[in-house]
């Protein structure tokens, strides 16, 4: 039998090969207290990320600080976070798009910033990611004003995209929190958005959460490549392959 130091030295190099919670030891048949509390902590952060509603005024401030001045707001037919989780069908439908009337219509590209399953991801990474996208989009494309969507699933963007007459819709949305990452953003690109689009008609860039996950500029560059390819092909989704992505890039 080894002593504690030897055991910890045994597992250290193995832990570099996997994020799995290996070599936790045991007390009787149970997990040692520190490991149990570490699991409780990770789960608590994930739960709070799901259940805490998006703080829209703070987000708008954050966007303004990042140089994104104007944003419209829509919400889904899900009344609160609990109904949102239980009823994905309601999260895909807008409660009222009347407020978008003054935004105009007929744009090459538009961005919807949706809370999804992690409002925290939108707070942490939304403003910088939107700014990176606006920076990377080709200058000759007309841009719709930003729309913030609450209690929203990806497909709610199709309704917004149709109302704004978008050529291409980019939905940035909070991804389902895991134990190791509770603030990851996903980006979904849909060519000619309209209600009824299937998931197979979208392209996805996931795991946007620098510094560990994909960085803003890399995600924006990939989105712009996908945008160009989908405009050329006249459709998005499984037919569009991105050959330039390197998910391993950080920053």
């Amino acid at each position, binding site marked *: 039998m080894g002593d504690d130091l030897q055991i910890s030295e045994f597992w250290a190099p*193995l832990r570099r090969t996997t994020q*799995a919670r*290996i*070599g936790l030891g045991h007390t009787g*048949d149970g997990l040692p207290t520190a490991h149990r509390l570490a699991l409780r902590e990770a*789960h608590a952060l994930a*739960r709070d990320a799901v259940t805490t509603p998006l703080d829209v005024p703070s987000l708008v401030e954050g966007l303004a600080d990042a140089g994104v001045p104007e944003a419209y707001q829509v919400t889904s037919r899900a009344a609160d976070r609990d109904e949102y989780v*239980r009823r994905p069908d309601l999260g895909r439908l807008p409660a009222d798009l009347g407020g978008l009337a003054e935004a105009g219509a007929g744009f090459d590209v538009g961005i919807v910033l949706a809370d999804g399953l992690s409002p925290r991801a939108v707070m942490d990474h939304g403003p910088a990611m939107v700014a990176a996208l606006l920076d990377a989009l080709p200058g000759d494309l007309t841009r719709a004003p930003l729309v913030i969507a609450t209690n929203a699933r990806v497909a709610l963007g199709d309704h917004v995209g149709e109302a704004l007459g978008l050529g291409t819709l980019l939905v940035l949305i909070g991804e*389902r929190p895991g*134990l190791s990452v509770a603030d990851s953003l996903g980006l979904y690109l849909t060519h000619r958005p309209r209600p009824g689009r299937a998931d197979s008609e979208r392209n996805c860039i996931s795991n946007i959460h620098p510094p560990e996950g994909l960085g803003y500029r890399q995600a924006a560059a990939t989105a712009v490549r996908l945008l160009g390819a989908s405009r050329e092909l006249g459709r998005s989704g499984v037919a569009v392959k991105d050959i330039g992505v390197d998910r391993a890039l950080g920053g």
Partner: protein
Amino acid sequence: MTVRTHALNGTTYRFDGLVDLLAKATPKRSGDELAGCAASSAAERVAAQWALADEPLATFLNEEVVPYETDEVTRLIMDSHDPDAFAPVSSLTVGEFRNWLLDVATRPDSSAILTALAPGLTPEMAAAVSKLMSLQDLISVPGAVQVTSGFRTTLGLKGTLATRLQPNHPTDDPAGVSAAILDGLLLGSGDAVVGINPASDSPQASADLLYLIDDVRQRLDIPTQSCVLTHVTTTIGLIEAGVPVDLPFQSIAGTEKANTGFGVTLAILREADEAARSLRRGVVGDNVMYFETGQGSALSADAHRGVGGRPVDEQTLEARAYGVARAFSPLLLNTVVGFIGPEYLHDGKQIIRAGLEDNFCGKLLGVPMGVDVCYTNHAEADDDDMDALLTLLAAAGTNYVICVPGTDDVMLGYQSLSFHNALAVRRSLGLRPAPEFEAWLERMDMADRAGHVVPRDPIGSPLAELVRR
């Protein structure tokens, strides 16, 4: 279709056919509310349960839930029904059948009686009676029947609880997978299977992982079986290429349309079963198929409609998946009960009930049931709920559960059980590992005479050579 009615407290409730009756009699769950087939009040639910209790069991042989003409699962269920096995209960109503089961469960020969009955039951009968049962009923009855299967270990023997060691890795890294296998083996896990969900869907990646597990198994002479949970058609190709395949895996569901969504038919499953059996790699048995199922899988594929285009409740469809499985005498079937998400099972209460229903229906139908006791971070559930469900399932005689390092599956992004959980529940309830695996643990000086696993630290353990480079 025959309308059923039931009057309760001055209101007469009406149920349009068997599909509607089954759905409204189902204990409350989010998936049925999402599908729009749930009872709209607590009183309507109980009215449906009263009406269902009066329904003759024989109705299920004459009135379909999903149409025979358009669904091969229904054809399989109806065409393979054994009237002789059904005879002892053929005159009973669903309510009387519940009474009969609870009585049989107290007899010394309960296991033989229930084993003989299984081919006479349809999945819809099992689902129907489960809807009238309490959690305790859902423990007593499956606890009274032994459903065994075998390959290199014998699973399902009374007094045992096995585990699947699930060493998943986000990039299928061989060193990371090996480290997680070592962690599980040191805690005595893996007697049901060492089974990896691959991150990549490439056949080469699956082959690499199969060689990795097979090498571990042979080097340490471990009596267990390996599985890489890739699509069954990929596995058929790997068998043809000479890769060491023990168990073909496939996700299955309770309708033909949902199975089509998974890219499988009964014919493809038959092909995989025959191909794997032909390798004759089993030692104590030749059960080779591994299936996963879960309430809500048909609904999530928009493949949940039955007679008249009505949505069928998710629990009845889940039982029908066991009707598919039993045609192939699998080694393993587990429901992934909390994995599919809160839109199908909202919270700990719903997940716990569903896990017990699934174990009950599976064992009653003669399927060697296991359960992935698990939850996602957007469900109203936590590890206390999992501890509760594990303990209830172990009391209900489930064959095996799934374990990962420290409850955290870093590839699939959800929480299952830890290796520790299995050790603790075995000790609480006096359960042992599969006998062949327990003998190996004894040889490795990792089990005491009572069958309790004695966890080992890696220093000085022969297992540590798995990760030596």
